[in-house]
């Protein structure tokens, strides 16, 4: 089984986000970055399938040079090689354009399986994988929490709402979008880190007709969410004082204890 895993680099979960002065996105200059959470599980799942069925795991990430750190980490964890779709302003592409650029980069690889995360932690479109499947002509399944792959068939467990699940069987090649938390992610070993240095990272650039096509959706303004409730913040930075005040308020004001 040859598997391609799509991995996106996003702002660190704990990063303090500052809105840029045009209020169209965040200031990226001083941010630290990490891999989008579900993509880490997509890679883990791919490595596990490879352990069972042999083949190759290729990671593909699109973005500026800084995404090389995501690629290096994936190679250190055990991916065999990588494709880096390079460009500085690709973050603002629509999911359709992103999927088009990724499709262009991986089409000739003719993978048996393509794994993506189910939803990115920054834009959170939840679409790139499904659109990519359509562009590559592959059947797909989303929110996958278990992959049962053999040489003969692919059976996957999908999460539905409210504690329901469903199994699907489909032919390969196919595309799966992987849910977070479905396994224990392995860390890179020192040996893995050394080995990664010799692995191939191919750079490609997306074609102009994809990047320059007028966007059909555009962010006009970014801002802090409006609060739906007036929150009483207690303790003024002192957590213990806040706790004392909270107990009183729950008793005398909210009357829930």
């Amino acid at each position, binding site marked *: 089984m040859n598997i391609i895993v799509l991995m996106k680099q996003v702002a660190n979960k*704990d990063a*303090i*986000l500052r*809105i840029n002065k045009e209020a169209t996105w965040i200031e990226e200059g001083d941010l630290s970055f990490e891999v989008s959470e579900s993509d880490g599980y997509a890679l883990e799942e791919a490595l596990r399938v490879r352990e069972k069925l042999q083949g190759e795991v290729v990671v593909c990430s699109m973005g500026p040079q800084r995404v090389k750190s995501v690629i290096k980490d994936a190679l250190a964890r055990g991916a065999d090689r990588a494709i880096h779709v390079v460009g500085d302003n690709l973050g603002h592409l*629509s*999911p*359709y354009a992103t*999927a088009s650029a990724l499709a262009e980069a991986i089409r000739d690889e003719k993978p048996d399986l393509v794994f993506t995360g189910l939803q990115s*932690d920054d834009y*959170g*479109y*939840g*679409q790139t994988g*499904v*659109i990519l*499947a*359509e*562009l590559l002509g592959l059947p797909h399944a*989303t*929110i996958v929490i278990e992959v049962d792959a053999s040489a003969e068939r692919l059976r996957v467990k999908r*999460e539905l*709402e409210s*504690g*329901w*699940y*469903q*199994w*699907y*069987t*489909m032919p390969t090649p196919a595309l799966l979008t992987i849910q*977070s938390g*479905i396994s224990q992610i392995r860390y890179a070993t020192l040996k893995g880190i050394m080995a990664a240095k010799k692995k191939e990272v191919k750079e490609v650039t997306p074609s102009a007709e994809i990047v320059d096509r*007028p*966007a*059909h*959706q555009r*962010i*006009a*303004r*970014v*801002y*802090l*969410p*409006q609060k739906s*409730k007036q*929150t009483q*913040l207690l*303790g003024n*930075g*002192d*957590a213990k004082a*806040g*706790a004392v005040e*909270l*107990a009183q308020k*729950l*008793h005398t004001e*909210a009357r*829930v*204890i």
Partner: protein
Amino acid sequence: MSNGIVVFIEHRNGVLNKTSLEAVAGAQLLGSALQQEITAVVVGSDASALAQEIAAYDVAKVINAGNAKLVDYTPDGYTDAMEHVVKQLDPHLVLLPHTYLVRDFAPKLAARFGKSLISDCIRAGVADSSITFTRRIFLGKLDADVVSDGEPPVFATFQSGAYRPDQARKGNGAAVEGITVDVGEIRMTPEAPFQEVKQAVDLSKADIIVAVGRGIKSKDNLALAEKLAEALGADLAASRPICDAEWLPIDRQIGSSGQTVAPKLYVALGISGAIQHLVGMKNSGTIVAINKDPEAPIFDIADYGIVGDLFEAVPVLTEEIKKIKGAS
């Protein structure tokens, strides 16, 4: 010229998914503002009873798009069916509820039109006959206003809770039209949906819930939350990562893939407040959040908040509650 609004109605075996009515409510508001007619679409091999039910709402028409291949939901089947309907109606807007089923096929549908969805919107407004959609980004930390500049149709999905189902206005009985749609090869074979285990714990009846999130850091630290729960007479619950890590069993998970609860008091410890968690608990009476990040989205819906370290706050809170309860 493209005209009208198509709204997709989701069901399982003819049973309506209530978030579809939220999408109907959204469509009605946009329809009035844009002076566009609404067509509701029910997909399925035998969904005529549901189509009749939807006809009671204030829409111009209900289409029941049928084909024998649509007995069970598959992304291939639903994409073909909806592509057929959208091409035939040539609408300005296609609105869908942002459910798991919709996220499974709607991006594929939009791609057939060279587009993507404006997905998971929390609201939409009209000014000078152009629509601005608002969606959450960065896991709920920021909002983004999104406009669509391109050619119609515009595809958008509404997050659960963007509108209330009871906002959907009833009408005088819309016409129902049954059509047979073209559906090509279906490549995936679904098995019957199932529940993993009989849920041992029913948190929907709990009066007070103490819920822990990733901020609790380790399984050992759960004892801290257990003590607070004990002092409050509360049930213990958790966000998804805690259950994924098996620190607590899955039947204690709150959220879109877990349980939906509405206790009179919900105490969230080290939970960021991702939308998939919020949908499971936002109707709680009094919501308390303890989180060290002042920008955590959980504070948007909290009545009381402590911005700070839960490891400092929780032991003190536990002791204070014991005092109050001891005195009363």
